[in-house]
């Protein structure tokens, strides 16, 4: 069945990860997405690859059609303008100023289509001293403070070795922006220009940690598996050398936690009676708990804590997750059979809609739909 954006048409002039993942989400919500690549596209074999094609391209291209346009050539630019007449959304993530040089500034595009919801994404914003700096996830990691709160206690901030998180995080904020643009237009008839950047998205993502900086003037330190504001919320070593993750994150969980670990006295201890007290007295409490957990294997604690409705879990990886019933039944990871690259495990949709479910379909090979789209526009390809 259709998604909530059925009938919305997107002119998708995006590259790499940030832009294409955003338009992919729009496509999963049912929008018709036409992805525009330059014919000289060089990204098709960026690692990792699956059967010769860049995996990122495969995963970002769900639900989209792909056309080649050389926007530096007048002929192809006219195709773009014709296509834009019938589009609802324009999305690009080039370096600031680049779309202007292709004749696709907001001024140009809104002349052709005043109702367009026009969104530009960048690394550091469209203007200012850092606007020209290329914005890839590792740079944003360094710049936005993201790594400074992660790592072992006492060590300098550690970089997350899956830096794509900050790319796709930006994509998520882009989608928030575009959806507001579409809603506003539906209510008022008016389109608009929207800007989103990786730095703002990364800072906003860290709001709950910047909170502590706002109070203390200091960056919250990296603390391994634990965190400043909630205790206990960390990994504990068990007898069988595995780590169990435990989180007492709601007040009513503390009493149940103490019962589950066989130490109800702890629940009566005034030093630990509330979260703020536990935070203040963590250096007293944690050694007690370390001692408790190391006495039994991880399974013992999982059973007891789960029974007691206290958040707990263990570290899992791809090999377990792909079979795990919680993942499978909720389609958090899904199998997608592609016409050209075999069957892949891929990300599931991040939301469910009861009325307008949306869908995921394999995407295109670059340029695959150029002829088809030109025909739809009543234009003929040359040569």
């Amino acid at each position: 069945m259709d998604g909530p954006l059925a009938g919305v048409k997107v002119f998708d002039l995006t590259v790499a990860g940030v832009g294409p993942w955003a338009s992919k989400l729009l496509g999963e919500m049912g929008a018709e997405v036409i992805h525009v690549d330059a014919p000289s596209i060089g990204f098709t074999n960026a690692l990792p690859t699956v059967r010769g094609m860049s995996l990122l391209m495969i995963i970002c291209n769900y639900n989209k059609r792909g056309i080649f346009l050389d926007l530096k050539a007048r002929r192809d630019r006219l195709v773009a303008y014709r296509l834009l007449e019938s589009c609802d959304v324009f999305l690009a993530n080039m370096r600031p100023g680049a779309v202007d040089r292709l004749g696709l500034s907001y001024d140009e595009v809104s002349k052709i289509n005043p109702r367009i919801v026009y969104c530009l994404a960048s690394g550091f914003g469209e203007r200012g001293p850092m606007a020209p700096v290329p914005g890839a996830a590792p740079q944003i990691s360094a710049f936005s403070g993201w790594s400074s709160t992660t790592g072992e206690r006492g060590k300098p901030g550690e970089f997350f070795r899956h830096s794509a998180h900050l790319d796709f995080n930006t994509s998520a904020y882009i989608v928030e922006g575009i959806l507001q643009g579409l809603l506003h237009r539906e209510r008022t008839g008016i389109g608009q220009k929207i800007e989103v950047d990786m730095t703002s998205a990364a800072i906003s993502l860290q709001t709950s940690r910047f909170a502590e900086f706002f109070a203390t003037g200091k960056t919250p330190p990296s603390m391994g598996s634990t965190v400043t504001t909630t205790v206990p919320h960390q990994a504990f070593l068990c007898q069988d050398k595995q780590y169990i993750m435990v989180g007492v994150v709601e007040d009513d969980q503390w009493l149940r936690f103490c019962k589950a670990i066989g130490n109800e006295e702890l629940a009566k201890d005034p030093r630990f009676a509330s979260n703020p007290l536990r935070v203040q007295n963590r250096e007293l409490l944690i050694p007690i708990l370390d001692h408790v957990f190391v006495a039994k294997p991880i399974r013992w604690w999982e059973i007891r804590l789960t029974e007691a409705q206290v958040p707990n879990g263990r570290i899992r990886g791809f090999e377990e997750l792909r079979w795990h019933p919680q993942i499978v039944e909720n389609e958090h990871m899904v199998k997608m059979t592609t016409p050209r690259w075999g069957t892949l495990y891929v990300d599931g949709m991040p939301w469910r809609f009861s009325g307008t479910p949306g869908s995921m379909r394999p995407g295109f090979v670059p340029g695959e739909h150029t002829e088809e789209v030109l025909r739809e526009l009543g234009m003929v390809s040359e040569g």
Partner: protein
Amino acid sequence: MSGALSGFKVVDITRGLCGPYCSMQLGDAGAEIIKVEPLQGDSARLMGPPFIGDESAVYLALNRNKKSVVLDIYKKEGGDILIKLIKNADVFIEDLGPGQPEKLDIGYDQLKPINPKLIYCAISAFGEKGPMANQPGSELVVQAMADYTNSLGAIGAPPVRLGTDVANTNTAVFAFQAIVAALFHRERTGQGQRVSTSMLGSLMHMRGVLWGAQSDPVDSWGDGHHQDNYIMPPEYTYKTKDGHVFLSFGQHDSSDPDAYQKLLAELGLTEMLEKDPRFKVARQVLGTVSRYAWEVKGIWEEKFKNMLTQEVINLFEKYGGLAMPVSNYEMVASHPQVQLLQMIREMDHPKLGKIKQTGIPWRLYGSPAEFQSPPPALGEHTQEVLSKLELSEEDIQHLREIKVTL
């Protein structure tokens, strides 16, 4: 009010880090947010130290734009008032867990008849189906289950989590998307619906590239690219005399084909280039995603240990490379680009004077998002909101006596 959601009303019973971030964003976008809290308040009010005055710093960061109404929704009178509030609302957000709202007569199927256009948003920890549907979650538990901690720390060492609360915040962003998309659909069709997100689902979604990369054993182990994610030692970037610096020197960064060699020459590392094959290709030795970065790091750092971060940056930029200081929050807040983006801002708070907030991450030229109001004290708007439901002063006093409100 100028935002895209002006005129819409949201009833929010969520607590902690996730639902509240979502409703804060809905408020930035112009919606009226009625935050219904139990008598003891949102659990975030107890997250700390640090506190600012009486208020938890975390609570303050996540709850601007909202009106706080205290209701014990588990008591009949409280539940009835909640349903009245939802009847007049456009959006209802809950995080009670699958099956729990139904026990309070506030499940979607129960609310739909009294408000058919309602957008109902449910947030769960692990997803609404499956053996873990009714288990409570937490940031760390979800990060670990979603393979995130495997990209941090060292093999065999205690687990390391992301300091950022991604399981919570990314889920809140997806909830915002679902709600606004549903409102868009409703504008076109008049139809409401139920939307849902989960913390586990959000992180599993964000990590999609790694599932694809491991789908085929030959591809997985053939190029080894993403396996580095799992086996490399902790990546701290490059230590300088006064901090750490991120560096990269891609093949196309400079129009001078000898730029990289010149950089090495200036550092006295030309011999490395001649003798050590790992130095031959610039991209292989720098940046955080390079194959040999960690093997040769000590060689670079021997040169950087007597250089200030800014000196290293200047050197790399001279030859067309890219360099950036690894920033802490103090550096972020004082950086001119961040100030231009207005991502660290202040707002007035009636008791605390000026409080800091992270800014609004989208710039909408036609329907600008704005801060509406400071984070409310517990129950600050109970009176105001309940009198709009035509409860009298005596009614509200009675509710206080029977501990349905404060």
